[in-house]
């Protein structure tokens, strides 16, 4: 072997090694980026909070007795406590990265519990709570204390007075509860629609259909669906399912049902293929034995073939869930991009993936919250992938 040859080989090898490390590099970059930006916002409140903040205006009658609670030991140095009003606040950032003043503690004997809802006198549950965000305190005879000037300034202003006109406060907002519930609804609805049709089709193609031209055409028509880009499915949903659902349901415009129907069409080829694969590995002996015992075709299908195909159907379901969670382009059209907190299957709302899209197309883009949602999506997708792998491993061993 010549020296030149050796050198050339080494060069080619190096290029190969470098190329194959790029995939690993990309994966780690994506994971690092998403975690670095998103981990700060991850907590249980994000999942349970509404997206749209609720604003309240609290007024108060003449205050006669003030709070006697001393500063609780549980408060941090950052918390600024008013022993007169029995409330602790601190400077924080909301989920869009803007500065806010948030309530961290309200003493039991705080006079602020005497506040009433200025917008709705009959609201008896009205009170200021921990995690509420104070945007301003308005006084009768001096300028308002705005959250802009920080927590310390606000407490100083409040301490100097025995009375205020109103406190404007709100829930934190920016939570993803609505989108999460929508995603779950969408997964459920889509599976209810797609699984029976997909499984029946797979059974028909594998068990009943004759091997003729008609079957081949049907098969290739279903196969063609896999090559259609998802945005085209979205247009189809917009042109077919949105008018259909607005006509026959109370919905007006894109809704969860139209979105689920669209997703069901996307999932059909996946479910059909995966189910068919598991039907194919069932030995014909099973079928013949069942038929020989006097069962007819449909009995054989439901009692013998289907139970053996269960792992394949489960795999299909997991793959389908993964696809629903990640799908964005089709859903932007078929389900809409409106982020909602009250979810109805006839109403507008949006899934987690489209929520990310809305956050990123906003001006300015909210990378942090988008990354946090991505972490959630990635974890779910990872779990689903691992389950599919384990399932098929176990299943292949048995077959």
């Amino acid at each position, binding site marked *: 072997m010549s020296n030149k040859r050796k050198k050339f080989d080494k060069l080619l090898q190096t290029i190969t090694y470098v190329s*194959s490390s790029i*995939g690993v590099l990309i994966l780690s970059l994506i994971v690092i980026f998403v975690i670095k930006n998103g981990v700060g916002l991850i907590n249980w409140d994000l999942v349970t909070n509404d997206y749209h903040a609720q604003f309240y205006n609290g007024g108060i009658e003449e205050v006669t007795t003030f709070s006697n609670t001393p500063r609780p030991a549980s408060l941090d140095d950052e918390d600024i406590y008013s022993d007169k009003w029995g409330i602790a606040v601190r400077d924080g950032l909301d989920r869009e990265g803007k500065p806010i003043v948030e309530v961290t503690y309200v003493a039991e004997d705080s006079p602020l519990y005497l506040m009433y809802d200025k917008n709705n006198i009959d609201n008896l549950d009205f009170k200021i709570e921990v995690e509420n965000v104070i945007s301003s305190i308005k006084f009768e005879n001096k300028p308002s204390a705005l959250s802009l000037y920080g927590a310390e300034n606000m407490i100083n202003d409040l301490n100097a007075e025995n009375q205020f006109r109103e406190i404007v406060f709100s829930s934190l907002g920016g939570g993803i509860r609505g989108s999460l519930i929508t995603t779950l609804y969408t997964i459920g609805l889509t599976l209810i629609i797609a699984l029976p*049709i997909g499984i029946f089709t797979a059974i028909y193609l594998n068990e009943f259909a004759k091997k003729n031209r008609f079957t081949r055409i*049907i098969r290739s028509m279903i196969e*063609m669906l896999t090559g259609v*880009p998802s945005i085209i499915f979205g247009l*189809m949903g917009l042109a077919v399912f949105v008018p259909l659902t607005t006509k026959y349901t109370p919905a007006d415009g894109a809704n969860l049902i139209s979105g689920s129907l669209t997703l069901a069409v996307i999932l059909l080829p996946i479910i059909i293929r995966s189910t068919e694969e598991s039907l194919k590995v069932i030995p014909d002996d099973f079928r013949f034995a069942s038929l020989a015992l006097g069962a007819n075709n449909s009995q054989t299908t439901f009692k013998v073939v289907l139970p053996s195909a269960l792992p394949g159907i489960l795999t299909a379901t997991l793959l389908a869930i993964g696809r629903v969670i990640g799908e964005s382009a089709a859903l932007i059209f078929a389900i809409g991009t409106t982020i909602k907190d009250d979810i109805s299957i006839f109403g507008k709302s949006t899934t987690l993936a489209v929520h990310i899209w809305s956050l*990123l*197309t906003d001006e300015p883009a909210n990378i942090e919250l*988008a990354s946090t949602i991505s972490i959630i999506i990635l974890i779910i997708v990872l779990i689903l992938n691992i389950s599919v792998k384990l399932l098929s491993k176990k299943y292949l061993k048995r077959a």
Partner: protein
Amino acid sequence: MKKNKNWIQNIMRSFHINSKKEIVDFFVRLIFMISTIISASFIVIIVAFIAREGIKPFVTDNDGLGAVNLFKFLSGRVWLTGTTFQSNLYSVGFIIINTIYVALLSLLIAMPIGVLTALFIAKIAPKKLSSIMRTVIELLAAIPSIVYGLFGAGVILPFVYNFAKTLGIQSPGGNSVLATVIVLSLMILPTITALSEVAIRSVGKDIEHGSLALGATKTQTHFKVILTSAKSGIFSSAILGIGRALGEATAVSLVAGNSQNGPSFGIFQTTSTLTSTMLQGLKETIGIDYDIRFSVGIVLMIVILITNMILNYVKKKVGNVNVK
């Protein structure tokens, strides 16, 4: 009533149904068949309905604006001349060119990386490493496109922006052809790798051994024998990859910059693809601005179809000259 029953019996007889068991069997079969026909009909529904909506702007007068000129639509260099809802001067000519341009560029980047990764996984790496690498590729394939979009917006846009700045070019927030190409090549890399790997692994051992026995080095064998033998399969992976690149929507729309005219060939220019154009500024659900998206959808489907046909033709030509 009696007549009615006879009628049912006649049908039953003509389908050779005699017992209750067979009635059930018949209906089960019927349900299965209906499901199958539903599944198969969706491709027709997609094409029919998108065509129905998409042709509207060309054949109706669009609420007094006049029909869109098909030739100008396909050849123009500005997306919309005039204001929305008051003009019918839409065109996608430059967008078609942009779409194909970025898709080909991303294929050009992803192809060598993907094929070499596949070669590494299939032939070079020790068993443990190759199974790890395979998992990495599978995970990359499983990441939803919106997360690639987020990665593009959060990492690649600033990178491109700074890169342009060091070259003394002002890039609008990094939105550019380069950013789009990078994001797209990341997204099609797992597709290409996975399919090429299958193709490389299916190359017969005897060919490999023959080459080694003739005195070729391992590297020579890998590049000159195995890759050329797997050519046809590798080409298939390219076809699938470019299909994905052409149809990708959300991630592209976040990094392309949605230019309104073009075509843009410079790598720091903003661009727009057929998919990103469909996604931008959807406000009304009636009128020309809504219908025209379906027309763009038709164009996208035709572009994908033609690209596939050309590549399949090339594949046939290339695949025939095989190392046997």
